[in-house]
């Protein structure tokens, strides 16, 4: 859906119209009540997405820096409308992959299709349908925030009226209206991040590529961004999210890809990855109680099938790793009772994305 401001043929009053490019829409002028039909023009510069069910298709991407393979034969697919989490330790090749997807870097081998457009042969069309937000968005500090948005919007040949409407919408959405005429160099980190997000959305992208967008932000702003991602995804925007905050990825992503040492080591839904990586693994049990003694801990350690015991600082919780296939929870409970420890709760800990991530990365080492 795009927005355009047109002039009423009768009274020349400006009327805002929203429709898809090429669509006919019936409008009534709020000033003179003149009714007319307006055919929304086909966008000249916003390229149509090629007919594909995949928003991003990556095939054998390789990037070398002075003989070092930063990205090594990376392949994965992101379905249209998905929120795809892209995880990996520091230096794994996440940002390099993202820079290739956004055509900032050229791959040495392999290719990627963004909305069906090959980044090697049709980079400009691919760039028209993406919105990109780097981890640290940089701006021309001496420019005012609204000038920054006008500058980036101009690349998409968006006419001035539509541009103004879009910029107003973005400032309102990002709660930056009061700061739009301030120079960017006076912005706080969070405000710069919000402005970066405005830049990423200036062309109504079909695919949003976000490189650690919430890094270094306060919890309130992180929550704000998360809500924004969900809202955009509900509107049909495919989101490719690289993040270190695994709880964030677990909360909003439908699928994840994990990269380590430049290679993709897993791509699947979090549930499937959990099943694949944790089913043959040891089970974790969380036990909470009033207090525990060292004697009781030593007694538990002697039980056959216990792999590891972790106590929290307040000595009110135990995290016990049990060998796969051993049902020793009743024995643990009995041992605690024998040691006069009042057990409040025993629960089996489910595999979190963090467990999956750590397990896969350790295995890859």
């Amino acid at each position: 859906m795009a927005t355009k401001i047109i002039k009423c043929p009768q009274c020349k009053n400006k009327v805002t119209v929203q429709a898809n490019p090429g669509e006919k829409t019936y409008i009534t002028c709020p000033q003179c009540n003149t009714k007319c039909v307006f055919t929304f023009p086909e966008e000249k510069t916003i390229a149509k997405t090629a007919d594909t069910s995949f928003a991003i298709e990556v095939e054998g991407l390789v990037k070398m820096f002075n003989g070092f393979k930063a990205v090594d034969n990376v392949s994965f697919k992101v379905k249209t409308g998905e929120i795809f989490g892209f995880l990996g330790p520091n230096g794994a090749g996440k940002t390099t992959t993202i820079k290739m997807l956004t055509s900032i870097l050229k791959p040495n081998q392999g290719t990627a299709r963004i909305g069906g457009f090959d980044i090697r042969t049709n980079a400009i069309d691919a760039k028209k349908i993406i919105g990109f937000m780097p981890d640290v968005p940089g701006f021309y500090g001496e420019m005012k925030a609204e000038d920054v948005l006008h500058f980036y919007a101009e690349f998409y040949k968006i006419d001035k009226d539509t541009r103004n409407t879009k910029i107003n919408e973005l400032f309102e959405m990002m709660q930056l209206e009061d700061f739009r005429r301030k120079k960017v160099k006076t912005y706080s980190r969070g405000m710069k991040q919000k402005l970066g997000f405005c830049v990423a959305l200036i062309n109504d992208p079909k695919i949003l590529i976000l490189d650690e967008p919430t890094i270094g932000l306060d919890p309130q702003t992180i929550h704000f961004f998360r809500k924004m991602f969900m809202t955009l995804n509900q509107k049909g925007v495919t989101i490719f999210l690289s993040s270190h905050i695994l709880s964030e990825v677990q909360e909003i992503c439908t699928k994840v890809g994990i990269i380590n040492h430049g290679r993709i080591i897993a791509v699947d839904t979090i549930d499937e990855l959990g099943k694949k990586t944790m089913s043959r693994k040891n089970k974790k049990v969380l036990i909470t109680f009033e207090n525990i003694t060292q004697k009781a801990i030593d007694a538990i350690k002697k039980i056959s099938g216990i792999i590891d015991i972790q106590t929290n600082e307040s000595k009110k919780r135990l995290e016990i790793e049990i060998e796969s296939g051993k049902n020793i929870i009743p024995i643990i409970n009995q041992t605690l009772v024998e040691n006069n420890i009042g057990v409040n709760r025993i629960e089996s800990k489910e595999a979190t994305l963090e467990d999956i991530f750590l397990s896969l990365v350790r295995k890859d080492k």
Partner: protein
Amino acid sequence: MKQNLSDNLWGTYVIFKREFFSNFKSIRMIILMIIFSLFVLFSIFVGSFIMSAADNIPDMDQSLIDQGPIFILGLVSGFIYFIGPLIAIVLAFDVIVKEKIQNSLNFLLCRPVGKRAIALGKFLGVTGALAIPVITVNTIAVIAIIIISNKGIEFVQAAGFIIYTMIFFAIYILIAQVISSLAKTTTTAILSGIGIWFLFWLFLPIISNIVDNSSVANALSLINPGALYSNCIGHILDMASTNLSGEIPIWGYHLVFFVWLFSFLLLAIEIFHRKGD
């Protein structure tokens, strides 16, 4: 293909506009232009002083004095030979590296425009912003010289002086842009720029004088934009004392001067395309 060309041309225009206005309105430009104007003013003053006191200066070449305004204009070009490259380098040394440091390059590179178009837009923007004050100052200088000397200058000579001076600036803007694409810090960029200025302004002419061989001197003058500028201006102004040896036809200097401009334009674009990220 046609669509890509149109996107690239549009992108070049958008970048040109931003670079032009941000440079044109910058404090740096104002300071540089004050310095440039003072140098031009000073050279006009020195020229007119020499002319008025020529009779009292021993061993003064009378043929130079007879040239009147041309002599002063030649003196102005001599000062520009010294200060012009520095002004261009100081203005353009951070045109790319600053974007890398402040991380705005990533935002720029993911717009629907090619890297070559970005490099071209930046060059045109900086050159355009510099061209307006430089051409204005030079035009005023020509008018002032005509008034002071009470003698006319041929239009071709005045226009040639103004155009060649601007091309001289443009060559150094391109040199600075190449350095800026390769440098990782602004300090490296400015120091390298000054190093190159030093090489062309002082080192190569000294070598040229030390080596008592006209072929070597000619070869060195062809690889030095400053020497090319001097020789071309000398020819345009038809000055009696130029260091043209005659081994290289005069059109050769003009040709090589333009070859320098286009070679550095291509180099600046290609280096940014390959290394600018």
